[in-house]
């Protein structure tokens, strides 16, 4: 069971990472990065690292996401690639 | 191992200093420099005292929070780490003398962050040197890197771009190092250096070990700017403010070199090194780096950029010494850590002074400066001669030991490169000297910088000479006891 969950989370994380890198809208990219972080947080929990998972959810998905969004508002929204 | 609180003295002082600087800076901006000065003077005293104690009584250790290794984090100081700590702190102190006026003029709004970051940088670097734990080293590695990115970013308009690139590559390097540590942990189940060193001999021939070492060396090489991973360095040094360059250039790459020595010669034992081809790879890449760095330096028209490329070449000398790994080569590498730190900081302080006084930075605009800034350029000349390797300056002797080491190892092409590279170095320095001294420029309005800056430049210039003449005393008293017994010269 845990194998399937992990596998699914992995695949989703990879998809989120690819989306984050390829979205032309930087805000969407930032959001996608947050999703990616959240998925990895779930992955950590599934792999038994509960503390790391929470940490990643708060810092990785939360703080980093906010930082990125703020940065996007201070700079530009669109990206060429 | 003697239990002592000395090993954490310097990092704690710097940590406290950084906090106090920020706090006092909120009230009075001008308080930042004096506080930093006091902190650095104290740190210098502690580090020198630590060096003396280590030399007299043997290695010191401190268990953070009282937890015993290998689980707890240990600060372990032997001769080498005490030596490198002293180099870092003393050079930083000398640069700080110059920094008072320079920072106020170059980045006036960022005086407080600058000095706070400077102390955080030094905290990270001394932490890297003093810690006895591979993962803790990663943490300090990142602390120093973060402070370094920020310091570089405080410079001119272009500085943030180079700082950002440095950040990307730097994190990549740190990640590689972390991966290496991860693999090592997989293999040994321990992160304490001494502990890992005692476990590793049982793992000779394990292919994962090669991967682990390669990753660690790659990560460290990136931070050390060893060819071909030097791409971040020229831009970062060129666009950073003069003080930031004068601190970062001489000591940051050296600390990475120190960690490389620590990992390759203290954590690995000789039998293990023989099975991993890391040493010869590093030596050959570094030898290539000497040539590439010097040739690129000749091609530059901006003096600061020229010095940056020459740093690539000079760091590669240390790389050659580490890669060859014979007793003489290691003396050369460790001595060059000190001599290059001294001469490079001197050179960057001079270019900084020139830029502050006249705004000039291109090679041909240095015409006639020797006459109007005689003291400054006296220091510059000494440091430049040392870079070329003219006896009896410090730069000559570190190369001399490298040559002896190369001959011992039978690596003739490397000997040839080390010797011939002096010519390339002479090529770009004498071109500059000729401009400085032989081309009068009557319209030039400039004079030597203020007393503090002059003291630091002259002290560094004189240091190059003193270190050269007294090099063997230094090698015998400090560097030899600092190296592992198997890598000492026989009969010493």
């Amino acid at each position, binding site marked *: 069971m845990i194998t399937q969950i992990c596998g699914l989370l992995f695949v989703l994380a990879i998809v989120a990472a690819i989306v984050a*890198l390829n979205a032309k809208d930087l805000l969407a990219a930032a959001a996608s990065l947050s999703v990616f972080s959240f998925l990895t947080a779930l992955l950590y929990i599934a792999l038994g690292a509960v503390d790391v998972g929470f940490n990643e959810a708060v810092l990785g998905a939360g703080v980093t996401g906010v930082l990125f969004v703020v940065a996007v508002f201070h700079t530009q929204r669109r990206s060429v690639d | 191992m003697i239990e002592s609180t000395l090993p954490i003295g310097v990092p704690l002082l710097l940590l406290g200093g950084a906090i106090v600087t920020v706090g006092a800076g909120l009230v009075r901006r001008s308080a930042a420099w004096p506080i930093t000065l006091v902190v650095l003077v104290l740190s210098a005293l502690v580090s020198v005292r630590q060096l003396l104690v280590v030399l007299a009584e043997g290695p010191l250790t401190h268990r953070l929070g009282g937890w015993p290794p290998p689980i707890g984090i240990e600060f372990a100081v032997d001769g080498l780490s005490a030596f490198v700590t002293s180099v870092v702190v003393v050079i930083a102190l000398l640069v700080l003398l110059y920094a008072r006026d320079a920072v106020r003029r170059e980045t006036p709004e960022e005086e407080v962050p600058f000095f706070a970051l400077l102390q955080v940088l030094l905290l990270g670097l001394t932490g890297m040197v003093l810690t006895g734990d591979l993962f803790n080293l990663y943490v300090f590695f990142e602390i120093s890197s973060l402070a370094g990115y920020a310091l570089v970013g405080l410079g001119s308009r272009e500085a943030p771009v180079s700082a950002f690139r440095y950040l990307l590559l730097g994190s990549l390097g740190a990640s590689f190092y972390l991966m290496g540590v991860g693999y090592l942990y997989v293999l040994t189940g321990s992160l304490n250096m001494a502990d890992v060193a005692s476990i590793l001999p049982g793992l000779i021939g394990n292919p994962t070990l090669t991967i682990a070492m390669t990753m660690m060396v790659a990560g460290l090489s990136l931070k050390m700017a060893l060819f071909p991973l030097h791409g971040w360095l020229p831009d970062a040094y060129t666009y950073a403010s003069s003080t930031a360059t004068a601190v970062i250039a001489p000591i940051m790459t050296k600390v990475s070199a120190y960690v490389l020595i620590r990992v390759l010669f203290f954590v690995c034992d000789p039998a293990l090194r023989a099975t991993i081809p890391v040493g010869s790879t590093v030596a050959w890449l570094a030898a290539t780096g000497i040539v590439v760095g010097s040739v690129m330096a000749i091609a530059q028209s901006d003096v600061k950029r020229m010095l940056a490329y020459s740093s690539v070449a000079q760091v590669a000398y240390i790389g050659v010494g580490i890669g060859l790994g014979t007793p003489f080569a290691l003396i050369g590498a460790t001595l060059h850590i000190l001599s290059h730190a001294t001469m490079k900081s001197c050179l960057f302080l001079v270019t900084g002074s020139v830029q502050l006084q006249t705004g000039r930075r291109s090679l041909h605009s240095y015409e006639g400066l020797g006459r109007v800034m005689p003291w400054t350029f006296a220091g510059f000349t000494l440091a430049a001669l040392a870079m070329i390797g003219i006896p009896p300056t410090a730069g000559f002797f570190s190369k001399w030991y490298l040559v002896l080491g190369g001959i011992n190892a039978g690596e003739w092409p490397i000997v040839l490169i080390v010797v011939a590279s002096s010519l390339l170095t002479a090529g770009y320095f004498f071109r500059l000297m000729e401009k400085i001294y032989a081309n009068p420029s009557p319209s030039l309005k400039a004079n030597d910088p203020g007393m503090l800056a002059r003291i630091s430049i002259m002290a560094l210039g004189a240091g190059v000479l003193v270190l050269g003449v007294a090099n063997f005393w230094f090698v015998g008293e400090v560097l030899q006891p600092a190296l592992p017994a198997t890598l000492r010269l026989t009969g010493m």
Partner: protein
Amino acid sequence: MIDLFIGRWPYVLTVVLMLIGLYGMLVKENFLKKLIGMNIFQSAIILFFIVHAFKWGATVPVYDHHLGDAVEAYINPIPHGLMLTAIVVSVATTGVGLALLVRIYRAFGTLEEPQVLERMQSRNRS
């Protein structure tokens, strides 16, 4: 090849993530995208440690009366502790990176690498 994959698929997927991150850092031209790539890369490394610490049939490293002192019953907690630090470090790096990006944008009005380089050069020429 398949055998390699079956036993170690989490490692393989970690490496895939790492490569995606590296791709972002090296190929993407937008500075923000490069930073996103760096984040992904660092997450992949953290994942590598966590995957390594994982053991089949073991549980979270909290003392359990039913399981007692048996070491093999618990997942190794040390990598977890280390990775907590690594996450903090990575967030701090991201923060510094973003601060630099804001400065770059103020100086050059863009975050696209080719344009920034072009503007740097044209300024140096003038």
